[in-house]
């Protein structure tokens, strides 16, 4: 091995915050279905605590031996709306409590999959699960939830969109952080290891281990060395860096899978920021040449970044999946927070950015008095972008009770902090209240 290569790796880990963002074990709960909810919950608890018994220990071992930080160990499960539908329970809080208890017992950071897939319609379990959400989000600690309201194949379920607007609002009434654990998707993926949107799809195996890599700091640092060069050089540099970052994910995933005796699922190539200085996607865009993220050119820079990350990462690992792209959460990214404070970044620009990167309007505090229909309309806009562009989009907005535009809100830890952002005051209520669905686009008819 060459000395400079060894030093490069050490630099990436020690100074540029290269880390494995998450090892996520996906666990199928289909074999836990029972018409007696107590029996189902007992089976769920047993299955999770058996399959994931060593997840945290193995993660810590790998961290120690390979000297690479693994920030989160997580679990995703089959959407609970499918599992709980067999019971006659009207409220699924008990299932959420079981997940919470199991997650705490094995020591993971989060458990995802308190989810429903309603892109084309509701089954009985979906309705009950969605109705339980405000209580579940406010009264459990580690349970993450997602609802898929649209897809390219089936269009957008606007009844669900309207309902999710009301649910987000109701959850915000109960707790400021409740909505940090809820994602409303269009084209949700079944193998996403990142929270809050992770769930274990029904087409997945009984259990798999997937890995999400990170490393915005590494990409920014690499770009600092090519100042003034053409955008082709920028794209090449990002590709090469993404390759190296992803190789870490492949290595960690392979080892974790072997030690846990569970098949290796996918590597998610996402660039996931944290509020820490030097761990920001916004700062990569600024390094490409924007005085402040949010200004004209931001969408183009992000498109280049997102594509180059994928191209570099795909060669580096055996199987790519999940969301794989750049994340642009506001409160979790120091550069985004600063751009909002400077007045350079607004929700409309963020929406445009979501057309070219992974996911969507993420971790955005909005005024507490935002009407439910406006939140639903934001969800509808994002879902439309996802549906038409054949990509995953999502909304995780955070109405904050009693707060006005510009006031700072602290969510704590990796969730970060951000100023409340302005939403368009004109009403969307009449459109949202029409209900029904937006039909699937013409280009979805591929057969």
């Amino acid at each position: 091995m060459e000395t400079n290569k060894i030093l490069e790796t050490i630099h990436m880990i020690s100074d540029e915050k290269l880390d494995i963002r998450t090892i996520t074990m996906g666990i199928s709960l289909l074999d836990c279905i029972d018409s007696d909810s107590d029996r189902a919950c007992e089976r769920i608890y047993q299955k999770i605590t058996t399959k994931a018994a060593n997840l945290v220990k193995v993660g810590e071992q790998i961290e120690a031996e390979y000297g690479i930080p693994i920030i989160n160990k997580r679990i995703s499960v089959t959407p609970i709306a499918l599992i709980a539908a067999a019971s006659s329970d009207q409220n699924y809080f008990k299932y959420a409590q079981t997940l919470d208890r199991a997650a705490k017992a094995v020591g993971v950071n989060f458990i995802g999959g308190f989810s429903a897939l309603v892109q084309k319609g509701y089954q009985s379990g979906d309705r009950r699960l969605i109705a339980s959400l405000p209580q579940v989000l406010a009264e459990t600690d580690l349970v993450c939830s997602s609802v898929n309201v649209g897809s390219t194949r089936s269009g957008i379920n606007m009844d669900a969109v309207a309902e999710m607007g009301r649910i987000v609002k109701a959850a915000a009434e109960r707790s400021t952080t409740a909505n940090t654990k809820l994602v409303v998707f269009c084209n949700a993926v079944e193998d996403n290891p990142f929270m809050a949107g992770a769930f274990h799809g029904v087409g997945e195996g009984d259990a798999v281990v997937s890995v999400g890599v990170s490393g915005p700091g590494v990409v920014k640092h690499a770009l600092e060395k090519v100042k003034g060069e053409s955008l082709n050089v920028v794209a090449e540099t990002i590709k090469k860096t993404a390759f190296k970052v992803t190789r870490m994910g492949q290595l960690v995933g392979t080892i974790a899978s072997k030690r846990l005796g569970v098949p290796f699922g996918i590597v998610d190539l996402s660039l996931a920021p944290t509020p820490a200085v030097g761990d920001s996607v916004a700062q990569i865009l600024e390094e490409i040449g924007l005085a402040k993220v949010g200004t004209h050119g931001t969408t183009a820079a992000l498109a280049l970044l997102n594509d180059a990350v994928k191209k570099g990462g795909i060669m580096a690992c055996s199987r790519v999946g999940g969301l794989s792209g750049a994340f642009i959460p506001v409160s979790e990214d120091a550069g985004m927070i600063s751009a909002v404070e400077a007045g350079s970044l607004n929700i409309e620009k963020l929406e445009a950015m979501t057309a070219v990167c992974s996911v969507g309007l993420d971790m955005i505090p909005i005024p507490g008095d935002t009407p439910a229909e406006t939140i639903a309309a934001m969800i509808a806009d994002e879902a439309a972008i996802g549906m038409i562009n054949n990509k995953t989009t999502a909304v995780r907005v955070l109405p904050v009770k009693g707060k006005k535009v510009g006031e700072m809100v602290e969510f704590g830890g990796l969730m970060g902090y951000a100023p409340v952002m302005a939403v368009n005051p004109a009403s969307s209520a009449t459109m949202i209240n029409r209900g029904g669905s937006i039909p699937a686009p013409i280009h979805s008819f591929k057969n």
Partner: protein
Amino acid sequence: MKAILTTIGKDQVGIIAGVSQFLAKKEINILDVSQTIMDGYFTMMMMVEIQGSQTDFTDLAQKLADLGKTLGVEIKIRREEIYHAMHQL
């Protein structure tokens, strides 16, 4: 298992001696060593062979970090696969 031990810090008397004595006591064999001064910093890389699967890696890494503190340098140990994974196909 093979691991790469890196020692980086301000150059002074006794760094190599301190590290190799520690390894000898732990019966850890040094397979290869390279040492240079980069920007005034003492930089040493050792490839070592750790015998048996019983060695507690966390404990070893901690003891080396402590040794680094007494020698005024930073000592890290990582399994070699991480470096191969990143730079070689």
